[in-house]
């Protein structure tokens, strides 16, 4: 019994203090870590590939009219998978090393929106080349995805607001 307790004591003492200061001090993840994506709206051509593969279905596409496509991202739902960046034909998406999704001001902090001028585009979807047949765009043509934000229209409203 005593011997066992001693062994356990040695095992516990040997490593010394290992607790990190995070979140009081920053703790940067190591090199290959994948955080949430950042979108370069200047590069985006509005092909909709990222929306087709995003497992969290957080990328919504709305064709306001023939000229304008609006892409809304509700990044609060992002699972850091990096699929959007993998398929983007224009390299408009970069995976950052940032991972903290909580905000003190509201969910809007985690939303991003971009508008792409698409006047001559027929929305045939051919500018997006899926890496496999399983990643094709399921909804080509003009689109009007429902944007379910955290606020008024949210399905979780009854939990979040009252």
């Amino acid at each position, binding site marked *: *019994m005593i011997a066992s307790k001693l062994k356990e004591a040695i095992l516990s003492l040997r490593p010394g203090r290992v607790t990190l200061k995070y979140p009081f001090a920053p703790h940067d993840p190591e090199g290959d870590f994948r955080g949430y994506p950042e979108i370069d709206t200047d590069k985006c051509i509005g092909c909709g590939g990222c929306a087709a593969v995003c497992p969290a279905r957080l990328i919504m596409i709305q064709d306001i009219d023939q000229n304008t496509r609006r892409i809304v991202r509700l990044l609060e739902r992002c699972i850091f998978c990096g699929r959007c960046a993998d398929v983007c034909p224009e390299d408009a998406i970069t995976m950052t090393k940032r991972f903290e999704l909580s905000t003190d001001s509201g969910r809007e902090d985690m939303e991003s929106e971009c508008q792409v001028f698409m006047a001559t585009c027929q929305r045939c979807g051919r500018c997006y080349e899926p890496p*496999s047949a399983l990643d094709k765009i399921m909804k080509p043509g003009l689109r009007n995805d429902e944007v379910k934000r955290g606020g008024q229209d949210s399905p979780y409203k009854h939990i979040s607001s009252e």
Partner: protein
Amino acid sequence: MNVQQLGETIKDRFGPDVIDFETLGPDQLYVTITPESLVAVAEHLYQNEGCRYVINSGTDRRQQRDAFLITHFFTQDEEKIYIAVHTEVGADDPQVDSITPVVPAANWSERETRDMVGVVPVGHPDPRRLVLSDDWPEDLYPLRYDVAHDVHPPPAEGVAPERLEPPEGASVVPIGPFFPVLEEPAYFRVFVEGEQVVGADYRGFYNHRGIEKLGCSVLTYNQVPFIAERICGICGYVHSCSYCQTVERAAGIEVPDRAEYIRTIVLELERVQSHTLWLGIAGHIIGFDTVLMQTWRMREPLMWLCERITGNRKAYGMNLLGGVRRDIKPEVYGDIRGVIDKIGDEWAELAAAIPGDSTLMARLQGTGILTTETARKLGAAGPTARGSGLAIDVRLDHPYAAYDRLEVTKCVHDSCDNLARVLVRLEETLDAIKIIHQALDDMPDGPIMAEIDEELPAGRQAMSAVEAPRGEVFHWVLTGTENRPERWRVRAPTYANLQCVPPMLEDNALADVPICIGSYDPCFSCTERMEVVDVNSGQVRVYTEEEFRNEYDQPGDK
């Protein structure tokens, strides 16, 4: 007996009741039978063919066949065969004979099928609701194709759960609904006489997330691996692998060798991670927090390693159909070996200290007995089964990924108590480390992802399983149109193991209840992956020990 012979045997025995059977490879048998013969066939498989029950599934095929497809899954572990018994019931009269009276382990899943698909198991000994909340509308069956994935019925007032009284003279000690030990929703009502436990109730399924429904209604084939991974927060990769293997099998996609090795390595890393986490929790449960602190300290470098290899410490996002997304670069091999060897050394030290520690032994030895017989009857899986002397391990019984090329040891103990389950996991962790070394030694070169140029054919099916840290994870997929499965059925190991808890608790002191529950490493979230967000009405339904006894201890039951 090979798979063809097994099919023939069933056909010979049941004649015209067997409408058809087909095989997939050397290890999968699909038998379609008439509804009238279902009970007899199930009993035959369970009693005469030595099969273990896995799960039941219901599929709404009214669009294709004007019928519901009811499927019972079995496995014959010695012959390495998975068996699916299909039967179709007409859409106008959705009921089917219950097999629970002859195969006790079917209890929960038949009720789940009733809740979700609306096919009533006739003659079920306990036909109460299992999965849906008490105020869910009677005639709304979430897994039917014409029910939307995000349907949200209003909460109802004045609904009462069916609750059973404790035995005469016993008092009730509630544990839950928020299970304090694992910080997950589960509600045990433990019946005690003085210090002695005389029975227990379980009510769970507070946390349905609608994952199967999402997979069959809004997601596409390549989106599902990511949500599958979220079925469990500790060992999610097993689900993502199992799902991918199932669809790959159904569609005939050849996964490159290197991808199989990578999957194997990540699976074993996950096992080490999960078992170290579990041992810490177990220590915490019995009030020995040193164990918690030290095992989690040992575990942390492994989490960082996984972050390096996969991009995240948990929920790796490694799998897509056809292979893996990230290669493990040869430069990292050395680091992997270093990290796991360090854990291995410390783990061995810790394992050596445990048998000499009388505090620990007093809590573990002879407590939480789950007999071999009960374990088999209720379909226990993984370390829970192996701690009760059942030598089952999917890695050896139904090899997947690269396990057929590696040396794996079945760690079995037969003292059937909490200690046995601890020892199984202690040994298994060291074995996992060996497996990782072997896999790194033999790692073949080559591509890590198969090319998929065409859409997957509809109407194909396959089964696949993975030995998760908690036991057998089983998936079945029926491929569909629109780039997604028509039906995807998941069975997490806790679904089976949870049904073993009430018998395990009996005759223990109240103080030992938490470790008994903890000892099978429950993962309530895995179990509750099914369907539709529970509106958290706070209402309680119970499942009592008494009922378990009534149902399971029937004469003639093995």
